[in-house]
């Protein structure tokens, strides 16, 4: 295992993949992030602890952690961190890495994200009804009924569409996204 922080180490790769991530090494383990996090109590490790684990090279444990998936992107940690570490962005990096490494056993959040972007890639817009239905049918079949009544009242209030909109430039968008994915793979 490479030394923490050296080229090729887990910490180094996390930093490389995060714009402005180089300040991660200055973390003083004060816990402001963990103290501020609204979903902190549900995380298996606090963000602070996760950063210590990253420094210690515990790649597998970090990428299996539910912590990044419980991040609600409220950015409280980021505006409070005394070292100005872009914590939310590091959480996105860890999610990207976990998905690539297929290590996210404690959460089905990635599948929610996948369902979401499936619509975006096909239509250029998100589609709440299809999204909720598809995701819940595959992951929470037992809650179908509850959702059903919720969805029906949403429909009743005119707050749920029956079919998705599609943008005109969907081909253009796909070309852009394909290129982006190709560039991501190279990095």
């Amino acid at each position, binding site marked *: 295992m490479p030394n923490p922080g050296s080229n090729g180490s887990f910490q180094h790769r996390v930093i490389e993949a995060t714009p402005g991530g180089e300040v991660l090494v200055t973390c*003083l*383990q*004060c*816990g*402001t*992030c*963990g*103290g*501020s*996090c609204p979903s*902190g*109590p549900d995380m298996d*490790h*606090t963000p*602070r*602890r996760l950063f210590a684990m990253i420094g210690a090279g515990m790649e597998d444990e970090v990428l299996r952690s539910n912590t990044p998936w419980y991040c609600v992107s409220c950015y*409280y940690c980021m505006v*409070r961190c*005394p*070292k*100005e570490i872009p914590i939310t962005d590091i959480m996105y990096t860890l999610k990207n890495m976990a998905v690539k490494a297929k290590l996210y056993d404690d959460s089905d959040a990635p599948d929610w994200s996948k369902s979401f972007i499936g619509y975006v890639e096909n239509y250029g817009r998100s589609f709440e009804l299809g999204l909720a239905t598809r995701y819940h049918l595959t992951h929470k079949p037992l809650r179908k009924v509850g959702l059903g009544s919720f969805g029906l009242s949403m429909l009743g209030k005119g707050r749920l569409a029956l079919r998705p909109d599609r943008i005109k430039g969907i081909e253009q968008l796909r070309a852009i996204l394909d290129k982006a994915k190709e560039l991501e793979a190279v990095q």
Partner: protein
Amino acid sequence: MSERIGVYVCHCGSNIAGVVDVEELSRWAGETLDDVVVSRDYKFMCSSLGQELIEDDIKKEGLTRVVVAACSPHLHERTFRRSCASAGMNPYLCQMASIREQVSWTTQDKAAALSKSKAMVAGAVERVKLHEALEPNQVPVNPNTLVVGGGIAGIQAALELADAGYQVHLVEREPSIGGHMAQFDKTFPTLDCAACILTPKMSDVGNHPNINLLSYSEVEEVTGYVGNFVARVRKKARYVKEADCTGCGICIDKCPKKVVDEVFEAGLGYRKAVYRPFPQAVPKFPVIDRESCIYFERGTCKACEKFCPTNAIDFEQQDTILDLEVGNIILATGYDLFDARKIPQYGYGRLANVYTSLEFERLCNASGPTEGKIVLRDGVTQPKSVAIIHCVGSRDKRHNPHCSAICCMSALKFGHLVTEKTGAEVYSFYIDMRPLHKGYEEFYDRLLEEGMHFIRGRVAEVTDADRQPGEEGKLIVQAEDTLLGMQRRIPVDMVILMAGLQPRRDAKDVSLRFGISCSMAGWFTERHPKLDPVATMTDGVFIAGTCQGPKDIPDTVSQGAAAAARVQGMIAVGSVEVEPVVATIHEERCSGCRICNNLCPFNAIEFLTDKAVSYINAALCKGCGTCVAACPAGAISGAHFSNEQIFAEISGLLYDVARGNGAKTPQPVEIPA
């Protein structure tokens, strides 16, 4: 006539010789460089034997110039200049090449190290040929001293000097001396009462025949140079005639106007419009605060004047301006407290029972607004639980990146006082506990024994939004307990914010006014962080206490005393040498364009209207050389850093550049003037 140059290469034990082939370097210099008549290497050039080597050669070989390739000139330039002088050579005809700091300690490749060393020796040789003999100026030192700031640092410095028999002018911005220390209740770790140890010193200052105390005054301008400064001081109108006032305090009793005291009581108490910050104030004379006085606002009242038994009130009093001649200056201007409102998530200013550390000092203080009772903002309720939050605005890139140095200990002190006076539970939220000095760790131990709770984690927020039973009506302190790795919410009645120390808001202006430098943040810069902590780069200006950086009372007092000792040294010698590195204008070449006039921040350049040329006052010139570089006519020359000397050094440093003409030693290219 060509010069006779001696080159001396130091081994510095193995510090240099371990990387640089010193024998080869010395051989090369002797054989290759023009005008080098002696070239030697030696184990330790700075030793007395090494110095004798140089002195002997000067005498026997008739050397006219000396080059020493050794350590940085900041370390031993003085040493080698002295040995040249003792052999009868002008000390400024010596030049050093820093082949230790710049070569052997920073380079691994031995071949590269040798070739860089050769370049540096060649540079020094080319340069030293053009050196001129210079004489340092001697100036007398005025034995009077100006001390700026009447906190404990300034008090200590002033008393040390005054007791030694020298005259001191002590200038303080506020109506009384005493500074922050006068606001404190107890002092850590011994828990001495601050007033008990400070007020005797304050009255010593007030009564000392050698101290001219100028309170409610500010230094507006400083001119002159080491040994001979003139400080212009504005003594603000007190509207009380000091000569007539007995300090009886009747005026204060009779004044009908009460306002919040933002300074001494830290906003936690009230004072009158005519006031003395606190009963033991020195001097004892009150001040009328023009901003809140009813007479100044509406033109009637004058209750103070009516009741004053000695007719000491004078509403017509004006500011007075004094010019003080002093030889040295000690700056002891202190710190400002970080404004806790800048961290809204801690609720200061919004949540009533969130206090700053300074407010809490006043709360504990027997002569404070609650007579020492620790109570909530309602003025009556004793807290049953108190949270102390460390590092408020400190160790934070968004505010002050530094550690404020005293908060950990103050927090322990507060913990003790809360426990002693109220029996409340105390929770201390810290990042790292730093009890660094004598007796401090023991004090930490004592608080652990007293049952204070320590939670390692920087507080995320303080809120009144309860979430679970037990939190209603409380302030909830939320943090990660990093030793447990979990979020905790502690409901408390009172929160104390350990607001950090930061430079005075006008520190940058003050540093400019006194011609010293300060850090980006505003801390005054010492001459050397370890070996010269109270001197500054400006001769004759010293610093003491927290204006230099956060520190506690013992360190502050040490610095006050140290600065006084340095000044006494200057006075004892009676005169001071001023480096002759100054700029001169050659009248015949000056076109009178006046470009240089505005460039000098020391006002050393004046324009002689009669001759229509500019002129440099050598006593004011600090030798930076900016004007030399800027003169379009090339009419200004900088002693010891002339264009020719620099050009020669460049050519020497590039001795190994292959040039078309194949010259072994480069021939300087003539630059048209």
